[in-house]
């Protein structure tokens, strides 16, 4: 049938394809494959990195083919767009029917189309109504009662809204995708490195691109604390003050997991660091001899008397909780340099190579903290999607659905006859058990 449709009506072929489950599964497989590539190829690295890892040919190919930023390349966006189209088409195709089904209650007329599950008869002189009412109330809860073409019909249905479940889920998915797009095009995201004491009027949104803030923010203090020296970091804490028109408006503490919002932007503690602002003064000690040397960062300094070289390579404001420290490299003339940390507040700690011991006398430092700054109007769309998803999943998969009808009428011979009709598309086991109980209890109520 679909084959003839392809030839006679090309438009409906397109519609048929867009609403087909085959397209969905196909697109899901493509998305999964592209995502796998995205986790195998490291993303958003400089070109040199790819050339080194994958070789010149492959590295170049990955770079030019958009595989190094795959989630924002056509490889990923095109199938995502197709999936969104597919979902939209399916919603348009099926939602009216689903709404109709979940708004139309079971009636005496429609119930007669349900499959028959059993019969019970009573003699003409008995009154089956109290028995039926009792049994139905016990087993099914509240039942409606109608007459239809001279027959009495007891009706019970649960989960009529179930057909809406899948549509809730798919609308939720569209909301999440829309939220992602909104965030991408209308959102702002950037970085703000701040020195201790520095006031910022702008933040970086790209390499060498700044975006002005309509307020000022000052980093009053940045602290890293440790559970115990040499252990796990306990807290990265930035104390911020916000100013509007030169007036202090808000003081707030920004920690990991505790972002600060101001003026429509949210600040997240992203990273931190320490830099030396001048040369480091060291005391070189050998036995009772002491000599002071100055070592600017990352510049080799000849030791007095030609006894080798040292370089101060890196500083840390709070090295593993032991306070300020400098990473030194010492090369005794020829041979490999030896690397060690010299701790300012704990000169006794740490092995140092060579015949000397280097003690830090002073090191001028500045502490800085880096914030992720962003404004994303799409987040609420995404969260709304998340919230819709859950009732959708419940309705689609967990809401029990069943429809029961008990049709009571007199046979031509004057006996009472009850026919039990019912259906439950998903919970076959529970349904069968309930059917058995219903019939058994109804039969127990007959005098024979």
């Amino acid at each position: 049938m679909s084959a003839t449709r392809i030839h006679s009506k090309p438009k409906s072929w397109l519609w048929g394809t867009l609403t087909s489950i085959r397209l969905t599964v196909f697109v899901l497989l493509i998305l999964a494959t592209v995502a796998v590539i995205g986790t195998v190829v490291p993303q958003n690295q400089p070109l040199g990195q790819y050339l080194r890892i994958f070789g010149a040919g492959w590295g170049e190919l990955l770079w030019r083919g958009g595989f190094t930023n795959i989630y924002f390349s056509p490889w990923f966006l095109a199938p995502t767009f197709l999936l969104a189209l597919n979902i939209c088409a399916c919603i348009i195709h099926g939602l009216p029917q689903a709404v109709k089904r979940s708004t139309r209650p079971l009636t005496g007329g429609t119930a007669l189309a349900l499959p028959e599950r059993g019969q019970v008869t009573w003699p003409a002189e008995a009154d089956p109504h109290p028995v039926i009412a009792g049994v139905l109330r016990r087993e099914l809860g509240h039942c409606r009662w109608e007459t239809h073409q001279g027959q009495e019909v007891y009706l019970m249905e649960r989960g009529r809204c179930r057909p809406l479940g899948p549509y809730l889920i798919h609308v939720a998915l569209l909301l999440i995708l829309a939220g992602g797009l909104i965030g991408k095009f209308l959102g702002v995201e950037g970085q703000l490195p701040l020195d201790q004491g520095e006031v910022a009027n702008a933040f970086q949104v790209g390499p060498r691109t700044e975006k002005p803030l309509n307020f000022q923010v000052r980093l009053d203090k940045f602290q890293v604390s440790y559970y115990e020296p040499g252990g796990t970091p306990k807290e990265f804490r930035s104390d911020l003050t916000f100013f509007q028109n030169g007036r202090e408006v808000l003081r707030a503490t920004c920690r990991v997991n505790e972002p600060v919002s101001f003026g429509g932007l949210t600040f997240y503690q992203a990273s931190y660091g320490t830099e030396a602002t001048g040369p480091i003064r060291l005391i070189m000690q050998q036995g009772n001899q002491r000599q002071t040397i100055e070592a600017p960062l990352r510049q080799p300094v000849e030791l007095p008397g030609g006894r080798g070289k040292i370089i101060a390579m890196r500083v840390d404001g709070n090295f593993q909780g032991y306070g300020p420290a400098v990473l030194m490299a010492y090369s005794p003339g020829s041979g490999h340099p030896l690397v060690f940390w010299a701790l300012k507040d704990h000169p006794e700690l740490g092995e140092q190579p060579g015949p000397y011991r280097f003690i830090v006398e002073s090191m001028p430092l500045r502490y800085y903290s880096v914030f992720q700054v962003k404004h994303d109007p799409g987040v609420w769309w995404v969260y709304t999607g998340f919230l819709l998803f859950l009732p959708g999943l419940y309705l689609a998969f967990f809401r029990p659905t069943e429809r029961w009808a008990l049709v009571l009428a007199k046979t031509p011979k004057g006996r009472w006859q009850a026919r039990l009709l019912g259906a439950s598309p998903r919970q076959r086991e529970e349904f069968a058990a309930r059917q058995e109980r219903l019939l058994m209890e109804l039969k127990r109520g007959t005098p024979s």
Partner: protein
Amino acid sequence: MIGQFFGVVMLIYLLVAILFLMEELWSSPRLQAAGRIILWLGLGLQTAGLIGRWVENYRLALVHGPPAAWSEKLRLVILHAPLSNFYESLIFFAWCLPALGLLAFRRYLKGYLAALIAVLSTLLLAYASFGVDSHIKPLMPALKSNWLLVHVVTAFLGYAAFALAFGSAILYLIQERRPRPSLPPLPLIDGLIYRTTVLGFLLLTLGIITGAVWAETAWGRYWSWDPKETWSLITWFIYAALLHARLLKGWHGRRIAWLAVLGFMAVLFTYFGVSFLLTGLHSYLT
């Protein structure tokens, strides 16, 4: 101390696996009852062990700053649930399997199926006991969030549900090739695969959603295409495809069973593969 305790639980699960295997081979209801009782015993002991580890975590946290207010105390308790490193996640995964198995399978948790689940739990506990650092370390700043508990619990319950679907799928494939009258009939196993997959899908969805909300407050991005996130999405796609194939295309039986196997491979990669082969934001596991 608690580590050795989990070693005992591991041996109990091993015993359970052997009992259920013998039960299947000799069709013995008595062995089945014994297996069931000992499984409950193991689960009870493991629950006690998890609570013990929780208490221990909390006690060690008190050293670094005792909470003043009642609400701070509650927060500290929630933060120190034993779910914050690789060792604890293995133990919790091993707990989820029999717990969820008893809940989802009820009387069908017997024979090969129960043996397979007990073996999986044994392997997880063995790996945790012998291959992984079990020391309690204080929480790093990124993990200090109330989302930790709900994110990890939903994610691992989801993994466990998919493991149960995998077990049922294996049982289906065995039963289809060499039918045994003592095993449940094929349509019933098919139903078990479906039910556990739906459960896992719900839990995985919850895990991803809670993770996204947490990431939004911690990193300022609900989705960063971190390998863990990406692989959980791939897993989600596979199970979404399974559910669509079954509900809309009427796929049943063998094809669904193979999809459940494929999905569980993706789950394993999301859990182990990503942690060891790929680096990313979730690398505080080890």
